[in-house]
């Protein structure tokens, strides 16, 4: 088990390095930072001087080594656009994105899992067919359309919920959270829903498929044959056995949550990393884009390490250490 985790850790480091390289090497080609950093009336010499100062004229390899070196030192550089340290900018946006992603994930799990179980157990019911059809439509509508519709319906027409931003946040030890104020929660509902709908559908369908698979398995038939109560059978026996594939996919879907959080954040003006990233694309803010990539990769790797740990928790067969 320790070995299993160490192995994953080493692989993760490798993934991180590769992403750092990609982040750096490829964003070198996107646009020209100098034209973004300077205003309308800056002269050609001034531009050239700035280019030199930023090290943009140095050889590619040299720039990359400097980039990774700085990353390792924890020096993430300064934004071309705001001139703030990138580390601070990103750090201040992480809570927003993580809380949004978390709530979206919670919605997707809390609704998706029961719905998946229900539709697996009653595969032919009317409700099941309706849910399946609705979710199919759900994954077929682009996220941004869903977001805008929600805003106009709940924000403008009904006026129930805020239309943008995070609302009131409270700082807990430097972490700006929306979880502690009513306003914060109200602001969270629409974006989380927008982001969650897609994930919910995936979760539901996955749980359903796995559940139907597991329900056919010998140990479920055996449990039925010895009269284990139905509820216990569905949730204790069947559901727990669907969890390994389900959390695998949820871990992988993290990438999806992040990708679509870019869209959601842009629609809801949600002050998270995705919004920052979009802004930095618009301004060719290479340091922010690069670090964003690295941070995303880091979270991805982290989530997948956690998933690996969860496997070990869920599945006793993986606890190799106590096999005789």
């Amino acid at each position, binding site marked *: 088990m320790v070995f299993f985790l160490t192995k994953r850790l080493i692989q993760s480091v490798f993934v991180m390095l590769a992403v750092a390289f990609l982040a750096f090497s490829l964003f070198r080609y996107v646009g020209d930072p100098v034209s973004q950093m300077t205003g309308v009336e800056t002269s050609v010499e001034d531009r050239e001087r700035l280019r030199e100062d930023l090290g943009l004229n140095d050889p590619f390899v040299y720039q990359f080594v400097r980039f990774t070196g700085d990353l390792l030192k924890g020096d993430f550089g300064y934004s071309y656009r705001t001139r703030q340290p990138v580390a601070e900018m990103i750090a201040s946006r992480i809570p927003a994105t993580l809380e949004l992603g978390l709530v979206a994930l919670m919605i997707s799990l809390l609704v998706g899992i029961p719905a998946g179980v229900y539709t697996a157990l009653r595969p032919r019911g009317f409700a099941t067919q309706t849910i399946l059809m609705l979710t199919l439509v759900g994954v077929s509508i682009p996220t941004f359309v869903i977001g805008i519709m929600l805003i106009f319906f709940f924000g403008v027409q009904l006026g129930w919920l805020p239309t943008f931003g995070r609302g009131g946040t409270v700082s807990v030890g430097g972490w700006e959270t929306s979880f502690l104020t009513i306003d914060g929660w109200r602001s969270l509902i629409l974006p989380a829903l927008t982001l969650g709908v897609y994930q919910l559908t995936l979760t539901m369908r996955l749980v359903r498929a796995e559940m139907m698979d597991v329900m056919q398995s010998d140990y479920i038939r055996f449990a039925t044959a010895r009269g284990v109560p139905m509820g216990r059978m569905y949730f204790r026996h069947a559901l727990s056995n669907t969890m390994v594939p389900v959390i695998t996919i949820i871990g992988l879907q993290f990438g999806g949550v992040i990708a679509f959080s870019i*869209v959601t954040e*842009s629609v809801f003006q949600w002050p998270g990393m995705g919004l920052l990233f979009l802004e930095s694309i618009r301004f060719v803010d290479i340091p922010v884009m690069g670090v964003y990539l690295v941070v995303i990769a880091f979270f991805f790797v982290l989530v997948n390490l956690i998933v690996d740990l969860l496997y070990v928790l869920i599945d006793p067969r993986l606890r190799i250490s106590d096999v005789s």
Partner: protein
Amino acid sequence: MLDFIKRHEGLWLFTHSPSVMIAAIVALAILIGAVFAPWIAPVDPYDLSSFSLMDGLLPPVWEEFGTSKFPLGTDDQGRDMISSILYGARLSLIIGVCAMAIASILGVGLGLAAGYIGGRFDAVVMRIADIQLALPAILTALLIDGIARGILPPELRQDMRVVVLTLAIALSLWVNFARTARASTFVQMNKEYVQAAMMQGQHPLRIMFVHILPNILGPLLVIMTVDLASAILLEATLSFLGIGLPADSPSLGTLIRIGMQFLLSGEWWILWIPTLFLIALVVSINVLGDFLRDVFNPRLR
């Protein structure tokens, strides 16, 4: 005929589920419309002289001020909505199908080889897949866009946008194929027909593509449909974020992006007609994908 249908499980199921048949008809209709757009669309949206700003913002024919010349109305440029949508579906489908094709060829090839060869090769392919997974599609699109910008001469850039977008989408989808192909290959590797072929001394490529591939096509087909749907959506999303196609190349995504500007202004048709069209297309592809999933995994029925 009836007997034939009865014998073929898939066909039989197909003729017995109305929703799947409707989806197939819708998908087929859209496909035909898209393929034959140049012949059936009243106006060619790429021919700038074929429409005029003076016809701009006309509503569909059933609304006040609508004219039968533009049954579904016009957009802010005076383009006929029907033509835009047909050409839009054409472009979206081209991008989706090509992206899916590239992704499947790349993914299946790598996945199959990884599953077959195993060992270090497998590890390397899967780590590359991990890296790809860590980069959301939008980021991939930007990266590809960046490379293209770096290596393409300027006069090609505009024309290459479709190619760049297709590549970007393909790159963000191949992992699915690779993982599935690899997992299925692992299963097949334990089947004795593969061992028989290996033992006979058949060429590895032949074993992979002639023996194993046909046996793992089922799950791959399912992924293909699902990924076709997501490729189309991804194109729309990228276009919405302004990193997709330019506005004068009408894909369903750019049409919706343009339509978004008229969400509130009363010209609802500019947004909603392409949106509904996109939803109809994606829903029917997904329904077909679901259906295939059922056919290939009878246990889940």
